[in-house]
């Protein structure tokens, strides 16, 4: 299938999301020739610094180089004046982060997570086999197709492993990524002489698992520095359920005092406290986030983990499980404008309109 490199061939349906530090837009569009829906990332290059520009270039380069069912491909990309358009297939359920913030504030269910993480690990296995480290595995970068399979994206921060030499370690510290810090592995954050390798991605998978299950990324409210000290000391992120909820699990510990202080918090989180994740899920997270790198397994080994066993049951319909979330599909989208270029002008126009409801003067 050939995707044309001109805005004429794409009809915009809506603006789905922002991306890249809110400097880019993700547009839902219809490819005129094939009548299929696509997602188009639109960047205005004028606003970018050289470094940001390089990051986008890298991302397109990597997307074009990699080919795997669980990796978001780039169908085509083109530049018109100062606008860059990157066309990729539509991921109906958008990103896991969007799913959580829209419908699952308390986190996704275990079976859904196991499906997503299996796909992520497959993608990682492929990326590692090509000699790269992904370095930014997180819910925001896991996109879910309308049929339920997940794709990994966010290749901006990918780094290639040195191919020669006995020490396959990387020391490069990704700058411009202060929003990714919570997912980074302790050995990456430490920046010491030992460096890090592809197992750093596995740690990120563990943190992402917690993010998907808890609805919020571990260390979200902590300052970066205390997050660093905790990770370096080997504190393992936890799934929150009835077994790990500290204040709830044992009656023998002076409960009166505890209840006295934390009543509000408990009421708030009743739903979280009462649920229970399987032991294999807890073990999976623990294994991924293991501080000792030699114990931490590779993606291939992790795929055989008992956490993924329930997937093999037949008749699981992810679309049903993901309700009330509804994917973008052919049936529920309407076309807005003639071509992609128009929506930009339109959204800019909206910015210019100032509405002052208080200033009515009778």
């Amino acid at each position: 299938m050939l995707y044309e490199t001109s805005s004429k061939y794409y009809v915009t349906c809506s603006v789905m999301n922002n991306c890249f530090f809110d400097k880019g837009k993700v547009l839902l569009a219809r490819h005129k020739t094939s009548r299929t829906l696509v997602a188009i990332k639109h960047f205005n290059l004028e606003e970018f610094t050289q470094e940001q520009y390089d990051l986008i270039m890298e991302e397109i380069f990597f997307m074009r180089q990699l080919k795997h069912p669980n990796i978001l491909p780039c169908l085509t990309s083109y530049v018109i004046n100062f606008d860059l358009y990157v066309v990729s297939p539509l991921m109906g359920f958008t990103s896991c982060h969007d799913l959580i913030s829209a419908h699952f504030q308390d986190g996704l269910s275990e079976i859904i997570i196991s499906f997503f993480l299996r796909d992520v690990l497959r993608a990682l296995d492929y990326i590692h086999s090509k000699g790269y480290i992904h370095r930014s595995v997180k819910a925001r970068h896991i996109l879910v197709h309308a049929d339920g399979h997940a794709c990994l994206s966010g290749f901006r921060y990918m780094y290639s492993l040195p191919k020669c030499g006995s020490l396959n370690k990387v020391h490069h510290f990704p700058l411009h990524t202060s929003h990714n810090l919570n997912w980074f592995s302790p050995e990456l954050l430490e920046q010491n002489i030992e460096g890090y390798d592809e197992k750093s991605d596995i740690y990120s998978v563990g943190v992402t698992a917690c993010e998907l299950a808890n609805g919020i990324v571990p260390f979200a409210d902590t300052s970066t520095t205390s997050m660093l000290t905790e990770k370096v000391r080997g504190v393992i992120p936890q799934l929150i359920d009835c077994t790990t909820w500290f204040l709830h699990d044992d009656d023998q510990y002076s409960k009166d005092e505890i209840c006295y202080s934390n009543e509000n918090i408990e009421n708030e989180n009743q739903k979280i406290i009462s649920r229970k994740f399987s032991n294999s899920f807890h073990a999976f997270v623990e294994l991924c986030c293991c501080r000792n790198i030699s114990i931490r397994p590779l993606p291939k080994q992790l795929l055989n983990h008992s956490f993924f066993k329930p997937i093999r049951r037949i008749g699981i319909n992810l679309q049903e499980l993901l309700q009330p979330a509804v994917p973008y599909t052919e049936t529920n989208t309407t076309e807005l404008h003639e071509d992609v270029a128009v929506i930009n002008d339109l959204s800019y126009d909206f910015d210019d309109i100032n509405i002052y409801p208080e200033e009515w003067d009778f």
Partner: protein
Amino acid sequence: MNVATLEKLLKPLSISLFICKEVSSPWMNDEKDGVSNDMGFHRVESDQIIYRNKKKRCKLIGKYVMGDVLGEGSYGKVKELLDMETLCRRAVKILKKRKLRRIPNGEQNVDREIRLLKRLKHRNVIELVEVLINEEKQKMYLIMEYCIGGLQDMLENSPGRTFPQWQAHGYFLQLIDGLEYLHSKGIIHKDIKPGNLLLTLDGTLKISDFGVAEALEMFASDDTCFTTQGSPAFQPPEIANGAESFSGFKIDIWSSGVTLYYLITGEYPFKGDNVYRLFESIGQGFISLPELIVEPLRSLLDGMLKKEPGDRFTLQQIRHHPWFISQPRKEPNSIVFIEKFKSEKYKRETILFVIDDYLLGLGILWITSILTLKKLFDRSIGMKVEKSDLKLPNKSICNLMLNCKVLFFIHYLKVRSFSFVNFSRTAKCKVPMYSIANPKKKKNL
């Protein structure tokens, strides 16, 4: 300090404190009762302890946390920094105006260094990240890329005071790369020496210290210079003989030659008891390469250390030289490690202490529950305790601990990160950090 005063102290920080009634059960009993010793207590080897004379206060400059001293120069100290936003390690050169005034051309040199470094961006040239000025303290902070040390320190700590040829070859290649970039930008470094060649964590060489460097005029017809302030042992004969003007690029070639000679033999090609004798011997320009240096390296050094600047190799000639092109055989047994010259392993720890103090001061730690140690150990059964997690105790917190005889469980409830931090590390024995790793096993017990 007793419990009541502690509570008073913590109140303004909105830390809620609960103390179990049965604090009295002394934890040493557990050991006697036969509770497994390696469950919680770990002996600290004496070499693991970093002794600190005074308590370090957490210092912040802008968004950076100040860490350990990396080195010291005539202008001031070089310290480690941690960027609090990106958590990137940096180094800072602290310049005191008072001290700078005492050094001839001190302030001018700093000014020039900053102006030059801002223009430069290359893999083998040190990067200046930011310049901060504190008018009140009359201090200037040059924030740079983090390097773990220089070739000079490394040599001094290596057994033979020399590098094996293949390792020196690797560094020399990078030096020439960086030098070529500088010359292409019209910058003459003038002070190339092992002490100014730093290494990053991954072993990339960085040319640093542009204090005496000179940028040629934009439209200068050639590379003629009139002044130099570099280290005497690395100066070429034309300067030793007191020439009024000389070719700038050739100075860097000569000092690179001396540097290479030094890296391989561990000695200077020219010696003298004092600067006059040294310059006399350099001025004669006669060198005898030791027997140990064989072709093709011999002819390269010979070409770089030619007395007449006109005869001396250019960068192009060096690039095409057989030794430069060759790939000396790797001898992994003879490698000089970077780690060896600094207690790099512990460097990280000290900055963690500093951060601890900082966080405690802010009152970020939210203490929700305190259990007796006995209960702690009940819980700890079935938890995995990894050796690599052992960290040295934080003194200030330990003192608090000892005085109160309680254990803090710090629990970021709000954060939902659900991590337990155990601050019960004491001066002599310590409980390692862990979280409740495997609740299943605990239930079985």
